[in-house]
Structures are given as C-alpha cells and as structure tokens.
C-alpha cells in the first residue's frame, strides 16, 4: 500500500516515512498542498497523511482539490494543538480522520489502519 506524506517540515516527513516504511508501507512525499495534488493525481496513493498548515496551498485547500479529483480519496489530516476550527473544516470537507501533533507513532498507525479499512465505492 502506498501512503502519501504531505508536510512542509522535512523532519516530520522523515519521521513519518521511517515509521511507515518500518510497517511495510511504500511512502511518497510532498512538501506543500500543490505538490500533494499533483502527486495524488500521478500516484493514486491508498491514503494521504496531510499537514493542515503549509505554504503555497494549505492542507484544507489540497484536501478539497484531491476530493474533487477523487471523491473516495482517503485523507487523514495532521493538525497542531489549537487548530480545532480547521480540523472541523477538514472533516466537513471529507477528511477521514485527524491526528494532533505532537503525536505518538501508535496513534498514526491506528488512524491509518482504520482509514485503510474503509472500502472505496
């Protein structure tokens, strides 16, 4: 299964990539929302882990664009503390789950497993 990790912070991408690769996932990366949309179109990953706050195109805008391209897209949003309003907005736009930074590895994996178990129509 392929996971697209989207975060403008190289360190956070590195951590997630290491964690997911250890679990046997193939991991692709994007560093902003615009790149995430392009990567999604090109790779059709099984799930996207996407930070909310990013330059160029925010996570919320990228989520909307990805869902427009693929209404079944499985996207998990990654938020910082204090971004409750944006998390609600993301859920309204079709995000399947959210993770709050700083997160424990187990929380990432449980969200991912839950979302990957959702059948696409």
């Amino acid at each position, binding site marked *: 299964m392929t996971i697209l990790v989207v975060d403008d*912070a190289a360190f956070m991408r590195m951590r997630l990539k290491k964690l997911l690769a250890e679990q046997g996932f193939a991991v692709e990366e994007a560093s902003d929302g615009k790149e995430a949309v392009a990567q999604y179109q090109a790779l059709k990953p099984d799930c996207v882990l996407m930070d909310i706050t990013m330059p160029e195109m925010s996570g919320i805008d990228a989520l909307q664009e990805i869902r427009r391209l693929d209404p079944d897209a499985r996207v998990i949003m990654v938020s910082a503390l204090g971004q409750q309003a944006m998390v609600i907005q993301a859920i309204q736009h079709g995000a399947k789950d959210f993770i709050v930074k700083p997160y424990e590895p187990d929380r990432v994996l449980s969200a991912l497993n839950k979302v990957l178990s959702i059948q696409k129509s």
Partner: protein
Amino acid sequence: MEANVEQVMSIWGKICGPGLEEASRALSRMTGLSFTMEDKAVNEVEWKELLDKYDARPASELYAVNLKATGLISARIILLFTPENSRRLVSTMMGEEVGLPLDEVSLSALAEIGNVVGTAFLNVFANVFGQVFEPTVPEVSQGQGSSVFPMFAVHQKVLVTEALFRVTGETLTGEILIAPVKKGDE
C-alpha cells in the same frame, strides 16, 4: 477584547514551570525519548536590555525559532540556542549526529521543537484563560546576536526563561522569550 499586557505578563511568569512540564511531556510523546525541561530562571526585562545583552556577548551566534500566537492577546514566542546546543538537541532527536551549520532536515527538527514548546506554553495559557490561542508556523533563523530577533519597541516587556533541557544523557540550556504584543506595537 484585548487583555491587559501587564496582567498577562504576570500570569505568564507563573506558568513557565507548568508550560515546560507540558512541553516535556509533548516532546517525549513525539520522540519516544525521555525529555525533561525545567526553568532555571525567569526574568521580565525590557526589549532594549535584551538586545544589548545579546550584542555584548563575545560568541553571539544563535539559532532562533520564532512563532507568533493570536488569541486573547497576540504574542511572540522565541526559542534561542547556541549553534552547539542546537546541534546536540537535534542530534538527540534524530538519533544521529548532525553537523553545523544545520541542514534542511535539522532546521526543520529545531523548528518542530519550537513548535512543540511554544504550543505547550499556549496550551497552559489557554487553560488559565479559557481561550484558544492559535500558533503560526515556526520560522528558524540563524545569525549574530540580536539580528535573529524580530523588531519590537525598545520598552516592550519580554519574559525570559532560561530553560534546562535534559534528554537521554544530554543536558543543555536554551532561552525562551515570550513577548505579549499589543496591536500596532510590532
């Protein structure tokens, strides 16, 4: 409604300890390492005094992680580390020795430390006031003395916390500056 800055400074001075405890828990959760942070000293100073202090240091190169917060009041939170302490902290976090100057991944790790610490402080502050504070994306800058600081009015009050970071065999210091900013003062 904007809060009274003097009142905020006074409350903020009292929550540095809980703020650092919250930050320690968050960093430990994130990294799987045992982080502890404590405040060695907390002082309220004027901005000019701080600039003079940093410019007067002989070895004054610094890495600064800078984030803004908006909510009940606007504030700046700045974490300051010497290059060597930045390198040691990031090396511990990444589980491998990194070099100086810090590369893109290391700078991003340092920014994440700023993000976690800043957000932990805001969280404690939010609990006290029952208000949500929204942090901006942290920015890391590197330079000599006060060149890494944002511009403030010279009489702007700043809370300076000298913090001790302990993590898996490393003990190092950093400074956390918190400046409540009235609209139009920046």
